[in-house]
Each structure stands twice: as C-alpha cells, then as structure tokens.
C-alpha cells in the first residue's frame, strides 16, 4: 500500500500552495478534494452555458507576490487585471468615484468637500504606516508570547523593536489604531458620509462586525495589504475567474509531480498512538501518509475529522469557542447585456471596478444590526463587480457576468436553518437594491445563483459559511489564531498540521497560511526552505 509523504485535505488555494511548496521540497504529496472540481472558494464554475462564475471569492487583491513567483503562477496561466476605478452610488443620484490617479481622486473628493479632498494624503500616509508595520507579519509565524523558546522570544523582540522604532507619536497612533472602529478612525479625517462609507467598507468585508465595532480599523489593513508604498490596496480580477488562481496552482503542483484526487471526501484523519497516519475517505478507503495537513477550517478539522479522544480537553474547548459566524452571501448573475447605471457616465472607468450602493456608515451599521438579530440586511451592503468588462473569457460576446458580494447574511435565519424560500427572498433583496439604481436590470438577467452561508458550508465546507475560516477579531489574530498554543500550524496530534485561513494571518485569497504552514512542516522535517522566497522587503 502506497504511503505518501504528505496528504493535504482540501484543494483550496491554501491547500494547493502548501502542497506545492512541500512537493517542491522533494516530498511526495497527495491532495484530496471532496468536490469533483478543485479550488475550494477560489473557483470559476460554469453554471449556465457560456458563462463562468467566480461564485465564491471574486477579487484578487491579497495574493502574495512571493508565492506567485515561487510557484511560477504566471507561467501556469495566472493573470491579474487591476480594477480601473470604483464607485459608491449616492441616493441623491450622484456617485463618488475612486480613481487610480492621485489628482483625480482628490478632485473627486472635492466635489463633496474641499476639506476631505485635502485630507486624503494624511489618511493614506497613516494607513500606509500601519500597513508597513504589520505587513511583514503576514509571512512570519506568529510568536507565542507564553513561550520561553528562543525562537519565540527573538520574534517577540523583533516585533518590540519594530514598535519601538516608530517614534512616540506614531506608537500612540498605532496603539489606538488597533482597537478603533473604522467609523471612529475615519471621523478623525473626513466629514462627508459617502467618503467615509467609501473607506469603511474595507473595514467590514468578510467580518461579522459593523463599521462602528472596535477593531474594524485593523480589518481595513487586512484588505489593504495587497501592496504597500505603491497603490495602497490594489485590487483586481483573475483572468478567467478566481478558478484561474487555483488552476494555476494545481498545474504548478502537478508539473512538479504532485497528485490531486477529486471526489474524495475525507471521513476521518487516521490517528494511531497520537500520530497522524493517513485518512479514511467517505467510501471507506484508507490512504496512508506520514503527514496530514488540513486546509479545512479548524472546527471542521478537529470537531469532525479527528476523534475527540485524540485531543486534549483544553484544545477542544478552545476550538469549540473559536468564532466563525458567517456574515456574507453571494449573488452571481449572468446578464445578456451590460447594465446601465444612469448616474454613472457611460465612459466612466468605474464600470471596470467595484461598485457599491451604501453611501453612509449608518446604513452599513444598520445592516449589521439586522445580522445580529439573525436576519439578512434589509438594506444590504453590496460589493458588486462586472469582471467581464475587462475579461471577455467569462461570458459570451456582449454578455456579462456580475458578482455581488452581500453583507450581512447570517448563518441561520432567526435561529433556524435556511430554507430555499429564505434564500430566494435574500436574492430578491439584492436584486431590488441594484434595480433601484439600474432601470431594466431585471430584464437583463439570464441566470442567477444565490448563495447564503448554508450553500457556502455545504459546497465549500466553510463552517457556518464564514469566508475567512474564522472571524478577524483580536482574540482570533496572530498567536490566538486559531487557538492559543496552536497558532504555529501544528496541532496536538503529531504529524497533523493546519494550513487554511483559520490560521495566521487569516482569510482572503492570500496564500500566506499555506506557505507559512509549509515552512513549519519543512522545519520539523529538517528540510531546506531555499525554494521559498523570503517575504518582500519593506524599506
């Protein structure tokens, strides 16, 4: 019976990144995937003829360039096309655009407020400073502050030194920034509702928090860390849909000799004498390996795939306490023509970027209040993109694919499970919001897929439909992610590792958890990591 060097559970982007690095280190790696397709939440699916849907994740913003280079993703077909703009529609028939050009950005703000127009530079500087402070942490294993091991202590000193290097005023700002709400933070720079809403959205996307919740200023960074110094937070489409990311990873993996099995759902991780030995699939087949690495979220991994008796009680308690309430849904729409938004000039670059309808922080926060009460937002926040304006490969000529990320959408509806009728009503809430700004919108719809946390959990395997595999609050970041004491990709079971977004640094199509986990595994195997680029310099 074949014994693999390593078996990775789940062919999501982090699983594949991890598998690629291990395979390239000379291990014989198998990836098992429950679905008949690969990609996890980074997929392009053909659900209606002629259209490709990025039906889960939809934007390529955070994927680490170091990983792209190491795994030769451009060679395997990955191409990222930047947004050309973005807009928030206002209820008075206007819009606020985000332009890439610095001066256009200022002049656009000046339409609403002369003061805010000139406040942007200081805002961008302060956010950039914060990004520069924490960006290097993404590609490092979080040190354990309760440990006396030299490695943890030296990492802590590194952080301390970075902090001490900030200067007193900036230290004070940093301390405040980490615990502020994005709403309070923006109030210190801007006066105009729509301008604040425009920035606040980055503080809430993917979280179970409202813009007035402390801690959301940090979340902003999480979405801005795509690049520093250059254009802060450059976002873009993957040509061919988000599946192109995982397809390139899979091709890279196979090209280096790796094996992927689809349609192979894992029933259990085999553990003997406290050590992982392999897997049992749903059909009873056993697969053996020296290492098992789970790309599934921490709850799914340890509450479903590993027997309780194999785990210490305190670890189980902490896993159970890990918060991963889903907060978002997704509506994917095939359109027979480009929708019109009368407020937006036809030649605006904003069509080729992200569009939003929530023009005040208060509306966003009220949407969150609905979610807290177990309802989807009656006036939801939408992050709407039409990738086919820049990528003709995703729809037949002249037709378009529209992706709407929707927040907030609860894992359960007022405490009970979602029904199909709920799902359809949720979809209708979204469509009617768009139709308010786009006459004739409904008539253009050819096909539509509505995804609530229920669908995300059932198909992608994300517990409670949480797209980040765990909420991004302080208690679940860095050395606390996913649980204290096990924040370095290892688990209480010898040979069983985690590499998904439940681990540091968290969610988004970033690849860092998969890479960092590979580095820890190779360290345990005393193997070299020369094939892994160090994190990009921040100077």
């Amino acid at each position, binding site marked *: 019976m074949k014994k693999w060097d390593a078996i990775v559970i789940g062919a999501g982007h982090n699983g594949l990144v991890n598998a690629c690095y291990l395979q390239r280190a000379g291990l014989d790696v198998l990836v098992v995937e429950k679905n008949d397709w690969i990609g996890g939440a980074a997929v392009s699916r053909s659900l209606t003829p002629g259209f490709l849907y990025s039906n889960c994740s939809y934007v390529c913003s955070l994927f680490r360039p170091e990983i792209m280079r190491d795994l030769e993703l451009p060679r395997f077909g990955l191409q990222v096309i930047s947004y050309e*703009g973005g807009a928030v529609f*206002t209820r*008075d*028939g*206007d819009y606020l*655009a985000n*332009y890439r*050009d*610095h*001066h*256009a950005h*200022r*002049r*656009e703000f*000046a*339409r*609403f*407020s*002369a*003061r805010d*127009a*000139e*406040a942007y*530079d*200081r805002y961008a*500087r302060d956010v*950039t*400073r914060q990004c*520069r402070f924490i960006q290097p942490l993404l590609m490092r294993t979080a040190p354990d502050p309760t440990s006396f091991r030299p490695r943890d202590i030296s990492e802590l000193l590194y952080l301390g030194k970075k902090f001490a*290097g*900030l*200067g007193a*005023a*900036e230290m004070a700002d940093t301390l405040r920034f980490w615990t502020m709400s994005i709403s309070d933070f923006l109030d210190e*720079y801007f006066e*105009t*509702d*729509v301008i604040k809403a425009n920035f606040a959205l980055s503080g809430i996307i993917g979280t179970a928090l409202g813009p007035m919740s402390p801690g959301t200023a940090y979340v902003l960074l999480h979405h801005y860390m795509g690049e520093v*110094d250059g254009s802060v937070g450059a976002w873009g489409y993957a040509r061919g849909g988000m599946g192109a990311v995982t397809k390139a990873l899979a091709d890279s993996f196979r090209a280096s000799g790796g094996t992927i099995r689809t349609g192979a759902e894992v029933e259990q991780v085999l553990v003997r004498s406290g050590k992982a030995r392999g897997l049992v699939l749903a059909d009873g087949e056993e697969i053996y390996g020296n290492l098992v690495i789970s790309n599934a979220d921490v709850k799914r991994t340890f509450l479903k795939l590993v027997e309780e008796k194999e785990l210490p009680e305190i670890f189980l308690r902490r896993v159970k306490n890990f918060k991963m309430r889903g907060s978002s849904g997704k509506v994917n729409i095939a359109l027979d023509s480009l929708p019109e938004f009368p407020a937006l*000039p036809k*030649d*605006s*670059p904003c069509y080729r970027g992200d569009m939003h309808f929530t*023009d*005040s922080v208060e509306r966003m926060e009220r949407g969150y209040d609905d979610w807290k009460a177990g309802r989807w937002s009656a006036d939801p926040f939408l992050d709407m993109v039409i990738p086919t304006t820049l990528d003709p490969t995703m729809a037949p000529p002249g037709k378009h694919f529209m992706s709407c990320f929707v927040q907030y959408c609860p894992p359960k509806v007022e405490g009970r499970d979602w029904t199909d009728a709920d799902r359809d009503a949720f979809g209708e809430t979204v469509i009617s919001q768009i139709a308010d700004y786009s006459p004739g919108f409904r008539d253009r719809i050819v096909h539509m897929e509505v995804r609530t946390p229920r669908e995300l959990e059932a198909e992608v395997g994300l517990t409670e439909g949480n797209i980040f595999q765990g909420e991004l609050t302080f208690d679940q970041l860095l050395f606390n992610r996913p649980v204290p004491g096990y924040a370095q990709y290892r688990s209480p079971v010898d040979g069983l590792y985690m590499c998904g977004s439940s681990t540091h640094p968290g969610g988004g199509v970033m690849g860092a958890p998969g890479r960092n986990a590979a580095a820890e595994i190779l360290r345990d195997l005393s193997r070299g990591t020369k094939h892994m680029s160090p994190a990009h310099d921040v100077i």
Partner: protein
Amino acid sequence: MPKLSSARLTAQSHFRTLRLGTPFQPRIDALMKTNDWYDWGGYRAPASLWDEELEYFAIRSQAALFDISPMVKYRIEGPDGEDFLNRVTLRDVAKLKSGRVHYTAWCDDEGYVLDDGTLFRLAPDRFRLCCQERHLPWLLDSAIGFDVSVLEETEAVAGLALQGPTSVAVLREAGFAGVERLKVFDLAEFPHEGGRVTISRTGFTGDLGYELFAPAELALSLWDRLWKAGELRGIRAIGYTALNRARLEAGLIVANADFVTAEHAIRPDRVRMPDEIGLGFMVDLEKGHFNGRRAIAQARAKGSMRHVLVGLEIEGNIPAEHAIVYHKQKKEVGLVSAAIWSPMAKRNIALASLSRPYGDTITDDLWVEIYAMRELRYERLMKRARIVPRPFIKLDRRTASPPADF
C-alpha cells in the same frame, strides 16, 4: 453629504482630463515645441518649451515667463488673520506689513516642517499663502478659536512669474505704472481689464523678478499684455528645468525634493525641523506660541537635531545629483538632493543633507561619490566637496532699488 448641486454634477467630468490646463494653457500650448510636460500637482506643466538651455539664459539675461498657477493658494481673511498665521507659521507676522511678502514655513506639533511658502499680506486682515503641498485640513483645524476664514483658491487665481533683468522694463512697458517703486518683497495692486492684478517683487530665481496674480478669467489678457510689451525686451516662456537651475544657483530649497514634508513622510526618520533644512532663521521664539515651538525649543536646548542642510561646491564639473556624501572618503554622512553645473557661477554646486556633526562642526574632508552614467557604464568619481554659503550667486540687481533698467 452636501446637497446635490448642479456644480457637483458638472464637476463629474473631471475624470476625462487627468492633467488640467492652467488658465494660461492656450498660450503655453501655442509656444510648446518640445512637448515636454510634467505633472505639477495635477496640472500639465512644461518641463521645457523650446530649448531648456536658452530658457535658462532667458532668466539671466532677458525676461522669462513661468506659469506658477499650479502653486497651491489659500486665502486667509478675518480680524484674527495675523494671530492665526502667527500661530501657524514660524516667522512673526506682526512684522509683515500690509503690502509686503515674506518667505516662511510651518511645522507640526513635533516641530517638523509641513511646508514652506510665501505669505502675501494683501491688506491688514487679508493674506494669501502660496505653497507646494495641500494643507486645508491643517489650516482649518488651526483656525479653531480664531476669527478667520480659510479658503482654497488654487484654481481661481492664476499666477505668473516674470523673472530676469528686463522684467521691470517689460512691466513698465506694459503700463503697470509705478511698478519700479516696488522694493524686494513689496507688493501692490494694479488695474487690469476692469479687474486687478497683484504684482509682487518676488521670485524663485535669485534675480530681479516679479510675480503676478490675477483672477483666472483675466489670465490670457494679462499674458498677452506682458508678451506684447516684452517683445523688444527678449521675453521668453520657460519650463521648470530652466527655473530649477536658477533656483539652485539662488540656493533655494524645494519641498519634497530637498526635504520631505511632515504630512507625507511615511518613514518616521525622514521628517525635518527648520534648523535641519536651513530654515532655522525663521523660527521666532519671542513672538508667542506657534505650532512646534515647544518641540523646536526643546530640540535646540538638548542639541538633538540630527541633520543639517548645506550648500556644497564640488570639484570638477560633473553634477552630483543624488550622490552620497562621505567624510574622509569612507564614512557615509549624507545625500545630495539637487546639483547642477552652474552656468552663471561656473561652479559645480549642490544642496545636501548631512548628518550632524558633519556639516555642523565637522566641515572638512567631505567627498561626494558621483555615479555618472555614460553610454551604459557608470563612471564613478570621488570628488572633494566644500561647504559654501548660499546663495551660490548673489546678484545685486535682485535687490537694487529702484531696479536698474536693462
């Protein structure tokens, strides 16, 4: 959100023109032969128009017209105008009489320079502040507790620099009667086309010269008036490359070229106090409180300022732009921020920022390492550098009163 107005809707179309023209653009476009543009604060500005060498000589021997409309301008008005500006800027505004201009700078709480610029006292309670960067939130927040209004008027006000030995003659010829009575840093208003133009004897060249400000709608007729009057006095339009040489000869610094302004510095060690960029003379500790006063006084008392900006004369004739400065050819002690071969002084000159004590108490045995790219190879030169006083050239005609008629 402000109420939806037709102005807000009309302004939507700005995205179609990423680099705006200034109010003088039709005239500059007509003269533009090199198509050598650069971005000045979102405006399309000429780096050169026809010949950057000759444009420079127009400054020194004729009359050069340079469009300064993209300068950021704020109108500051109100009974507390003087107190407000005294709190914001370094110099004593009480000493700035109506009808006068001074060069000043302003700092944040930590005493780091936010920008430098010129302050025009148009009337006892009316000022114009001209600068490189944008500061509206800072100025508005500084106005809390003062009876003063601050208005951004960059687009509304057109500006022209007329510099060079024949500039006064051009103005007189153009009919600005009495302009020759303006002493250096004086300003006065003159009638033009039913409106008014403000003319000050100021400039950025170290030469005899004037700056003219007028409402944007009067810009073209003002240009034409000067152009016509200057025909026989050698008037030429120039771009920034020529001006940059002249300003360097005059030893003048440029924000975000020779120092990083405090609101833009991302790295905490890049900011500078006035004393560190040669602006210490502006700091008036006697006038009462102003932004950064405590920090500057404390840094002076502790001797904790770490940098100094100096003028260098470098042996040879190869410009040392962005060269590293060494002590005893070994220890790295600073960086050249701007350098040229000065056609006027016939010296190889530079501005450099050095780490104290170099440039402060240790001033000898300084060297610059020049990497001169020549046909795809760096010619590496280690040249001796000497700290020299600025300006690098001193022209009596700049300050002569009345100005000589050339």
